[in-house]
């Protein structure tokens, strides 16, 4: 792409238990560039290292080899500057904080003044359409609502990048599709770069501008597939022939990558 990459991964390897005889190569020869404003899904079976790759980008673990830049800095510097927000599979809200105070957390850690925190949190809650639940406590919300609060929290400090590690994985199918639609609407609003980890083909295709297909043992990038379906994508998008065709294409690449890896 013409624009400079906001995330760049060069020859990254990640080996767990590297100094023992139980060494596991989680990531091998990873090269990836992600441009500003892209919605990139990392798609693959469990054990393909997609979550590990995301954690490398977020500086929650470090690569054994290779170079990563995020916003032109090391991941550590990007984390310290709070360049990214992160959403995990579980909402991980703090039980002892109201919904609003949960959303304020990144701003509070960054030392923002109280008024500003409050205003921003309420704005973010409006964005995820939970404005009237600001004073509630997490236990009063459903799983889907809790995850929306987690998204609001991740976005409250205006990060330029959003990392999402299977954020909808714990939800039922109905909620999951509804939140996919919500997520696209939010993304259109805030225009951050999103790196989204999932093992659902249709989820990756519906959401992403690009799907990065990974294969397991060792975790490698098998293909990068542009999804040229126009935004905004809505519920009806899921029933179009173009959507089905893209799902089929991604599935074939995924399966081809799998059978390549299968032991002879």
């Amino acid at each position, binding site marked *: 792409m013409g624009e400079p990459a906001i995330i760049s991964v060069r020859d990254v390897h990640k080996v767990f238990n590297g100094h023992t005889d139980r060494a596991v190569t989680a990531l091998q020869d990873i090269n990836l560039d992600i441009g500003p404003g892209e919605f990139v899904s990392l798609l693959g079976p469990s054990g393909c290292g997609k979550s590990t790759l995301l954690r490398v980008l*977020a500086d*929650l673990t470090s690569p054994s080899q290779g170079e990563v830049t995020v916003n032109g800095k090391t991941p550590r510097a990007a*984390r*310290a500057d*709070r360049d*990214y927000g*992160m959403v*995990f599979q*579980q909402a*991980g809200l*703090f*039980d*002892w904080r109201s919904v609003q105070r949960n959303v304020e*957390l*990144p701003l*509070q*850690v*960054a030392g923002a003044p109280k008024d500003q925190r409050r205003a921003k949190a309420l704005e973010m809650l409006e964005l995820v359409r939970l404005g009237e639940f600001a004073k509630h*406590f*997490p*236990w*009063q919300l459903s799983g889907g609502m809790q995850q929306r609060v987690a998204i609001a929290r991740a976005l409250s400090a205006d990060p330029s990048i959003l990392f999402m590690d299977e954020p909808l994985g714990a939800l039922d199918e109905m909620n999951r599709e509804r939140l996919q639609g919500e997520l696209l609407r939010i993304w259109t609003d805030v225009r951050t770069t999103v790196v989204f980890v999932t093992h659902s083909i249709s989820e990756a295709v519906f959401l992403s501008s690009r799907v990065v297909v990974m294969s397991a043992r060792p975790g490698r990038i098998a293909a990068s597939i542009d999804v040229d379906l126009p935004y905004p994508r809505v519920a009806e998008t899921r029933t179009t022939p173009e959507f089905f065709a893209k799902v089929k294409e991604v599935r074939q690449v995924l399966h081809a990558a799998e059978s390549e890896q299968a032991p002879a």
Partner: protein
Amino acid sequence: MSAATAPAPAATGRGARLLALLPARYRKQALPVAVTALLLLGSWQLAVAVFDIPSFVLPTPTTIVTAFFDDVGTIMAAFHVTVTAVLLGLLLGAVAGVAVSLLLSRFASVSAPVLSAAVLLNCAPIVALAPIFNNWFGVTNVMSKAGVAAVMVFFPVLVNTTRGLLQVTPLHLEIMESLAARPRQVAFGVRFPNALPYVFNALKLGSTLAVIGVIVSEYFGGPAQALGVYIASQAALPRFDYAWAGIFVSGALGLLMFGAVTLLERLLMPWHASLHEESD
């Protein structure tokens, strides 16, 4: 008593509001509790009369109540002295327990030796500690009683709080890490609130332990007016009905402390209390 000096309507309003803080199931339990208490006291009264038990063995509830009102000034003054020592001891023990466990969670390497020392301290019997504290602070000094209570409160608070500080959801730590939070922010933003329910469990234990600690140490001498001193001297006279009145007031004190901690828990941790009601 500050409640007695407040205007009556305000006091009842406050009382009603305090009652409303109790979960519905406690309010529903109030009647059975009252009935059970009446039945117990009634059969006690009856048994003493029917079996003609001498009053130095077991006085009737009515003689105990009569003794209480006969000596109410002395008993309530003693109550005041004892309650001061209990509150001070509870506070000291709780603060020390929480402070030490905060340090232990920060410096994990010293936690084993410090916990062993705490176990040792906890094994020391109150009857041994009481004369020592009397010697250190002086018999009439409130610290000699509060100190014993603090030692008894310290251990459960330390053990429970340490557990609460360490048993943090890994995801919460990871979220704080992704936010580049400083260790102090993790300690006060995650570990400490996570430990609060554990702290309150320990304080409930500690609130009754503190009462026992203070009253037992008062047996080894104390200010002229103190519940433990009162019970010991009345029993020696012997005026057992007065001693029993003192014992009942001590029991009521334990109950009161427990209730106060429970109330404080509900006020300070609304999220946690609501969880309880939800699980009904």
